[in-house]
């Protein structure tokens, strides 16, 4: 089962929920992926020992000037203005390139080959309790998060990278937890796509509600069942509850506004370490999610 944790609004507790859910499950068969490649934080709570690392990016064009006739076909087919012919020069703008390969395919002289433009890294390793963890990290100054997330997810599903994410277990994970970035646009969609269930973590405030509504539209559009966790319960008003009741979204857990929890998380402690009784609560949550997804598949 693949469970993505998302929120719309930032700072509502996605990583708190994702890490503690992962830590409450069977470490031997659970994989946790931090897909917030712009601001990855899950490792701060899980303390993994990274044993594997790979540079990733997209394939960008490289023009062989000796073959190029400056016909301009590459620039014509590129939708992103990432390649241009100016006089006797064919220029590539890597920061605009999406790595689609269309210029290479369309060059009548076969003058374009492709090379890896490194945009970030993937890292993986076990945490002290045996949970396996992987993340992507976008390089500073790079605009595009999606290719990193895409490769992080591919790596896990295909398990045929060199070396694979985890030689003994590749593609045999019972549960994969994906921690998304805030927002509702392409990086979040890339993370959530293909999940069996989305946990929407929110807070009971106007900002939390506004962004929860947007995230609910995303999961509806993707056709993925979802449930809500209300964090800092008691902090604001009851409009999130009203909204969930209106649209029939189950509220699966409430984490109260509690200064001790806030302080513990600020120190980098997982919620299940600060409040061990949450281990059982997260296991119950997992069983509820199983029931909901089995119902959805029936």
């Amino acid at each position, binding site marked *: 089962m693949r469970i993505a944790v998302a929120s719309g609004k930032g*700072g509502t507790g996605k990583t708190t929920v994702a890490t503690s859910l992962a830590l409450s499950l069977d470490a031997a068969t659970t994989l946790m992926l931090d897909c917030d490649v712009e601001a990855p934080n899950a490792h701060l709570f899980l303390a993994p020992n990274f044993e594997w690392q790979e540079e990733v990016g997209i394939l960008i064009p490289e023009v062989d000037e000796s073959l190029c006739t400056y016909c301009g076909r590459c620039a014509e087919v590129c939708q992103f203005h990432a390649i241009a012919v100016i006089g006797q020069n064919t220029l590539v703008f890597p920061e605009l390139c999406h790595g689609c390969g269309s210029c290479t395919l369309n060059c009548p002289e076969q003058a374009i080959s492709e090379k890896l433009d490194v945009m970030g890294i993937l890292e993986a390793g076990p945490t002290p309790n045996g949970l396996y963890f992987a993340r992507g990290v976008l390089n500073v100054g*790079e605009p595009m998060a999606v290719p990193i997330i895409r490769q992080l997810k591919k790596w896990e599903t295909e398990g045929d990278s060199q070396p694979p994410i985890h030689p003994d277990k590749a593609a045999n994970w019972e549960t994969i937890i994906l921690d998304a970035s805030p*927002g509702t646009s392409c990086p979040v*969609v890339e993370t959530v796509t293909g999940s069996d269930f989305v946990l929407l973590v929110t807070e009971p405030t*106007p*900002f939390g509600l506004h962004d929860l509504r947007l995230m609910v539209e995303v999961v509806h559009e*993707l056709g993925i069942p979802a449930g809500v966790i209300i964090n800092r319960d008691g902090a604001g008003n009851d409009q999130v509850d009203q909204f969930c009741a209106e649209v029939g979204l189950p509220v699966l857990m409430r984490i109260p506004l509690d200064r001790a929890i806030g302080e513990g998380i600020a120190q980098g402690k997982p919620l299940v370490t600060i409040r061990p009784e949450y281990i059982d609560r997260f296991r119950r949550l997992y069983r509820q999610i199983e029931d909901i997804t089995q119902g959805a598949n029936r």
Partner: protein
Amino acid sequence: MKQLVILSGKGGTGKTSVAAAFAHLAAEGEHPIRAVLADADVDASNLELVLNPTVLETHKFMGGGVAVIDMDACEDCGLCAEVCRFDAISLDERGDGRPLVDPIACDGCAACVYQCPTQAIHMELQQAGQWFRSEGRYGPLFHAALRPAQENSGKLVTMVKQQARLLALDNDYELIIVDGPPGIGCPVISAASGADLALIVTEPSAAGVHDLERVLQTTEHFGLPALVCINKADLHEEATVTIESFCRDRGVEVVGHIPFDTRTTQAMVQGLPVTSSYYDTPVANSLRQVWTRVLAALDGEGG
């Protein structure tokens, strides 16, 4: 005219609460300054919830194209699915072996269009969202709504900022306050481009410290001067000290400590900046102090 961008790296540190307080202080504070507001967090825009805007203009925002297959012209060769690097065309989804485009996964690259031997594919522009010119409680506000699950948020951010800038130039505004998105990627780079100063709102937590470092690397990468303010500064004193020494080592000024106070949330529930609802509180006082220091720094920046 100056441009200030408010950033954070980590989400939920209080960017929008700070931006709303600045809007209030610019309009009604001790030293009024004519400011235009721009909400650059286009996929989770919250500034409007505090500024109570009346929308004056609504404009369509067209995003990238999406591949559309003419099934009468298609001969099911499957080349489109083969060349697509975004897994946006599948041949088995329909159950009849014919290609089907997933418009959400489609990147708009048109590689399939050019490879199709029967010219059965064309691109159709999609409306990716809207942007608005509004009159808010404290002056003009430019904001947008990216349709959920859309791409091109960076382009929409650029559009919102361009419009704010045009209005500011035409009407002699002195400042544009840009409420930025979280992260360090494309929409953040768009939000920060052209700014004179970044104010980074951080919080004293392991995650806050980690992401502050990433966002400071980003502003340095683009040569953008930055100031830091620490929100919820009393939540974890040890991390506050870490942030202070980290900033000192990097030569970045910490311009304020905003205490944790549930009244910040209460103000948000009321739909008001905390500096307006709870004027005489430590939170409001510290925000006024941050604002004064930001204005002084902007005065010192050329442009």
